[in-house]
C-alpha cells in the first residue's frame, strides 16, 4: 500500500508537468523564469534539509557538516568530496558534542 501509493503519486506528478502545457512552446518571457527555477528549488531543498527538523528550525551538527561540504564543493567542484566531507564533519561534531 505504502509503496504502491508512493509510486503512483510520484509517477502522476512527473507525468503531469510535461503535458500540462500541451507541448506548446512557452512564451519568451517564461524562459527566464525556468532558467531561474533550479537555483530557487535547490536552495530551498538545501536549507530545509539542513536547518529544518520537522516544523522547527534548528542548527545542528549536520548544519556544520553541510557548510563544510559546501566549501569543498565551492573550492574543488567535487560533489563526491562535498558529500564525504559533509558526512565526516557531521559525524565528528556529533561525536564531540
Amino acid at each position, binding site marked *: 500500500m*505504502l*509503496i504502491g*501509493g*508512493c*509510486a503512483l*503519486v*510520484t*509517477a502522476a*506528478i*512527473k507525468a*503531469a*508537468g*510535461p*503535458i*500540462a*502545457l*500541451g*507541448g506548446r*512552446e*512557452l512564451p519568451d*518571457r517564461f*524562459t*527566464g*523564469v*525556468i*532558467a*531561474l*527555477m533550479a*537555483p*530557487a*528549488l*535547490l*536552495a*530551498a*531543498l*538545501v*536549507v*530545509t*534539509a539542513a536547518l*529544518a527538523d*520537522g*516544523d522547527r*528550525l534548528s542548527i545542528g*551538527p*549536520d548544519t556544520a*557538516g*553541510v557548510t563544510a561540504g*559546501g566549501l569543498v564543493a565551492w573550492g574543488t*567542484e*567535487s*560533489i563526491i568530496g*562535498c*558529500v564525504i566531507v*559533509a*558526512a565526516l*564533519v*557531521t*559525524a*565528528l561534531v*556529533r561525536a564531540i558534542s
Partner: protein
Amino acid sequence: MSVGAQREEHTSTFADGVRAGIPFAVAGGLLSISFGVVAQKAGLSAVAAIVMSAIVFAGSAQFAAVAIIAQGGTVGAAVAAAALVNSRFLPMGVALGPSLPGGAAARAAQGQTVVDASWALASRDDGSFDRMMLFGSSAIQYVSWTTGTVVGAIWGEKLGDPETLGLDAIYPAFFLALLLVEIKSRRALGVAALGALIALALVPVAPPGVPVLVASLASLVGLRRSAR
C-alpha cells in the same frame, strides 16, 4: 570529476549523460544506503525497502514517507507527504515539457526520468533542456540508488546508526553542490537567496514539501527583463 564539465556541451549523447551523472550517482548511492537502514528501522522489510527504491525512485519522498511511518503515522499520511515533497517535480516538468518530443503519452513517459540532479544537469541557460543529458544521468543514478538501497537494507545493521556516521548530511550537501553549479549570475544568486528565505519562513507553518514548492515562485523574478 568537475561538476560543471559537461555544461558547455550543447547537445549531448546518452553516454555523456551517464558520465556527467557519475559523481551524483556515487553521492546518491551513499544516500540510498542510509535509506535502506532508515527504512528497516521504520519497520519495512529489506525487500520492501529495495522495491520502494526501485519503483518510486525519489529520494526525498521516500525519506519523508518512511519518517511518517516511523512516527506511527498512517499510510495515507505517508503517501500525502510523499506527494507534497514531490510536488516540485510539477514545475520542473512544466519547464521541461517543450524540450521533449512526441505526443502527451510520450512526454509523460519521458517525464518519469526526472530526478533533481539530472534535471539541473540538463537545464540550459536559455530555458531549454538537453534530453539525452537528462536520460543518461538519470539512468546511472537509478542504478546506484537501487544498489545502495540493497546494501543498506541487507548489511545496514553492521554499519551502525546512520546519524553517527553523519549520513544525514549527505542529502543537503548533495543539493548544495548542485546549487553551486547553478549559480552563474548575480541574479541566480539573488533568486537562490530568496528561495531559501521563502522556504525557511514557511517551515514552521506549512507541511513538509510545501515550503520547497512555494520557494519555486522565487524564479518569477525572471519575468523582469534586465541584463544578467
